[in-house]
């Protein structure tokens, strides 16, 4: 009986291994297909940015020639990297980087402080404030954009960097993200520091903030993407090249009558690089933050 059972077990083990192997193969194939779907538009973008004939790019779209360049040129990149002139794309890119840096930097400080106070502060009615913050999150940006335009214009802030930074520094979503993160940290940490005579600000700065790298990374990336992709707001509140970001400049290539695919693609590639770098720099903590959130529910 046992002699018979051994080969059966081995067969089953082989079957199981084979099933696992097949499953892995299917998984790998699925991942490859998904990766291809995600990567192919980016690859097409890169290839098109190396072609210097906008009509050819348009004609190639929809065929496999969109993924091939026989005579790659960097002339499009040269044209969208100038720092002066009527369309100083290099300048727009620097503007965007400055706006991104200030928004994310100020946003991390303001939102984390607000989140910390809501989680550990002694303010009366914290629960109510938190509910209001969450309620604010459901209001779409577009619905308040025109009143906001009037406000900033009356404050004399139009056509400045500040007008593109200040309104977006505090965000209900990021306050809530920080609140959630801080609230999950052990109470003992706060109490021990308090007993040692640390002020609330000191506890925030020296203990809680260094522990919140995943939250900081998540907010940096999300806020960075949001700031980087701002389009309508800068159009409405800027008049000249002085503080305009790259997203608005790229729209120049999509004219009424024709689209300048060559330069639009090169500018898009340049526009992608900083946000990709931001993601790569913070991805370890970003992923761990998401995994942590999932595990903790």
């Amino acid at each position, binding site marked *: 009986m046992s002699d018979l059972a051994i080969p059966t077990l081995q067969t089953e083990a082989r079957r199981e291994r084979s099933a696992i192997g097949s499953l892995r193969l299917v998984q790998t194939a699925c991942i490859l297909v998904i990766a291809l779907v995600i990567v192919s538009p980016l690859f097409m973008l890169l290839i098109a940015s190396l072609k210097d004939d*906008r*009509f*050819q790019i*348009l*004609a*190639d*779209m*929809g*065929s496999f*020639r969109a993924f091939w360049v026989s005579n790659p040129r960097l002339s499009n990149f040269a044209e969208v990297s100038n720092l002066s*002139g*009527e*369309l100083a794309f290099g300048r727009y890119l620097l503007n965007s980087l400055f706006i991104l840096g200030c928004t994310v930097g100020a946003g991390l400080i303001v939102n984390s402080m607000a989140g910390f106070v809501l989680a550990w502060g002694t303010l009366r009615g914290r629960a109510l404030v938190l509910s209001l913050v969450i309620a604010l999150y459901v209001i779409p940006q577009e619905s308040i954009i*025109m009143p906001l*335009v*009037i406000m900033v*214009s*009356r404050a004399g802030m*139009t056509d400045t960097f500040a007008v593109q930074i200040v309104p977006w520094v505090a965000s209900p979503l990021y306050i809530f993200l920080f609140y959630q993160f801080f609230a999950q940290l052990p109470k003992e940490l706060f109490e021990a520091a308090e007993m040692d005579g640390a002020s609330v600000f000191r506890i925030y700065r020296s203990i809680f903030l260094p522990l919140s790298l995943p939250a900081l990374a998540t907010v940096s990336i999300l806020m960075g993407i949001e700031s980087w992709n701002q*389009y*309508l707001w800068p*159009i*409405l*509140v800027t*008049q*000249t090249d002085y503080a305009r970001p790259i997203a*608005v400049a790229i*729209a*120049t*290539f*999509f*004219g*009424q*009558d*024709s689209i*300048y695919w060559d*330069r639009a693609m090169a500018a898009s590639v340049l526009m992608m690089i900083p946000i990709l770098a931001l993601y790569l720099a913070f991805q370890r903590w970003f992923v761990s933050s998401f995994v942590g959130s999932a595990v903790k529910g």
Partner: protein
Amino acid sequence: MGNRLLSFLMASVALGGLAEAKTVIHVMHQGDPGWVSTYGEVAKRFEAANPDVDIELIYAPHDAYNEKFSAAVMSKQLPDVMELDAPFLANYVWSGYLQPIKPLIDQDILDDMTESNVAQGTYPVDKELYAVGLTDSSVVLYGNRKYLEAIGARIPKGVDDAWTREEFEGYLEKLSKLEGVKWPIDTFRGYGIKTEWITYAYGPILQSAGCDLIDRKTWKSVGTLDSDPCVDALTMMQKWVKNGWVVPQSSGTNQFFAEGHPAALALGGHWFYAEAAASMKDDIVVMPLPKFGPKGASPNGTWIWGITTASEHPEIAGKFVSFMLKDKALRNYAKEDSAYPGLKSFAADSPLYANGGPMAVAFEQASKTAIARPPHPAYPIITSAFMGAVDEIFNGGDVKAALTAAAEKIDEDIEENDGYPPFDEQQ
């Protein structure tokens, strides 16, 4: 040292005073990179010729121009000079944003305007001119010579010789069976409904069929947009879509000249010629729009220049507009861009549109069949309602129901605004 510092400060104050003494003219415009650079250079030349004036250009992307304009209105920051899409002129004048431009523009420019250019800049109530442009626009029927020869199609010689509806539909059917043709026609559905394309390009099909988006005497849409000729015209277009004869929206706007030339005809704007001819060379044929009913019809109107009522220096603003329209470099750029002439002198200097030129038929349409889009303050609603209806119809909706709903929406808006006086008195 102290004296030097004092002198420096005094000089700075004096220079600052001089800088402040300059008159600043704000000019809001749209356009692609070439136009943006060209306007910038024109502004510099104007400033060099008028050292006491500063031209501040405010660029807004084409797709977000209306939003930018709304923001400027709400924040009371209207520019002195603004570029505007011609069919929106009536709305802007009625709202009090634009002022009559005739006294502010050089007489030689006014005398140089084509009839269609005057029409696109004129407000129908007081018949005053509120905007002027160097260019105008039109839509023609482009054809692939090889395919047309293969089906033995007649090539029209001019506007009077345009295809009839029967001929046109017959050719579509033949082309649909021809090897190599994936779609008989590209009507540029790829432009989507965010642009003016549907009203601009398909409106003339209704007008040619004997109806319109709105009755231009009573300013009522019910009974006109949902009349039998309009229902018939859009049923015809819906049939083209159902038969698979039209390039779908998802296939973009390059199927006429893409590899293998999958679309045989293209109902395209004058600007399409440059990109199509660059790829197809002699294989491209430019034809007038077909006659779908009792008369021929073609669109007109483009981005033109107006001076706002907010301008504190309208004379200088007018001087800048005149300077710009005469600027040689700007005209040269417009010519390279195959811009459609709105000034006679510019037309005479544009071989593309001159007699015998490849786009001559497009220019011929301006004087023979061009019909401006409804010059009414409710135009923004008229165009959005019509575009929504066409979208619904192309997606298989009931033609009569969609057009009636659009017509009712237009009439409701007019009623809600008490007929947009004095348009309600124009019967």
